[in-house]
C-alpha cells in the first residue's frame, strides 16, 4: 500500500489529492491510477511531471515499500 499525493492541476483533474493505492512499484502504481482514471494516467505521464518517493525526486522506475509516499509534482511555478 502506497500513499499517493497529487499537487496543483493534477489534484484538480483527479478530484482528489491524497489516496492509498495498492502497488509495489511505481510502474504498477501508474497502471492502477490510469486504469481507474485514464485522463489522470495520461496527465501523470505528461511532460514536466516529476515524481517524488518519500520526498526525494526519482527518475524512471522505483520499488515501493509498504507505506511509501508517492507524490506527483506538476511543473513548479515558484512562489
Amino acid at each position, binding site marked *: 500500500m502506497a500513499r499517493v499525493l497529487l*499537487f496543483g492541476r493534477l489534484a*484538480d483533474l483527479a478530484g482528489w489529492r491524497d489516496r492509498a493505492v495498492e502497488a509495489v512499484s511505481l510502474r504498477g502504481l501508474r497502471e492502477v491510477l490510469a486504469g481507474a482514471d485514464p485522463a489522470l494516467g495520461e496527465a501523470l505521464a505528461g511532460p514536466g511531471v516529476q515524481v517524488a518517493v518519500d*520526498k526525494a525526486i526519482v527518475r524512471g522506475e522505483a520499488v515501493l515499500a509498504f507505506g511509501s509516499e508517492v*507524490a506527483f*509534482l506538476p511543473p*513548479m511555478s*515558484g*512562489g
Partner: protein
Amino acid sequence: MTTPFRITLTDQAFEPGALLTAFCAGRDETGAVASFTGLARAEKGAAVALELEAYPGFTDTAIAAFADDAQARFGLQDYAIVHRVGRIAPGEAIVFVATAAVHRRAAFEACDFLMDYLKSRAPFWKKEHGPDGGRWIEPTAQDRTDAQRWD
C-alpha cells in the same frame, strides 16, 4: 547549518516589519541586513485571491538546500525566509526574505538571488482565483531570465 526557524511556510498572514525587527535584534557583528517583502498583487482588479500550494517536508527542504548554498556563495552570516501558503488576498505579504552579512553588497545580492529562486524555481504551485474561476500559473519568461542571470 540549517535551523528550522530560518525557513517558515505558514498559512497565516504575517507582519514583515515585526519579522525584520526580530531578525535585526542582537547582531553585534553584522554590518548589513537586507530584506525584501513581496505582496500579492491584483491585476487591474482581476485577481480575487492567490492560492499557493506547497509540499510540506519537500518544499521547505528544497528551499533550505538552496538557501544554504546561497549562504556559502555570498558569505552570509544568516538568513530568514517566510513564505505564505494557502489562500492569499491582494495586498497581503506573500514572502519575506532577510539576509545578514558583514557588508551591504553580500546582503543585497543574496537577498536578490534568493528571491529570484523563490519566484521561479521553488517547489510551489500557484493558482489565481479570478472572477472567471481558478487558473494554475507557470513561471513567466521574465522569472526564468531573472533566475538565469546567476548561473
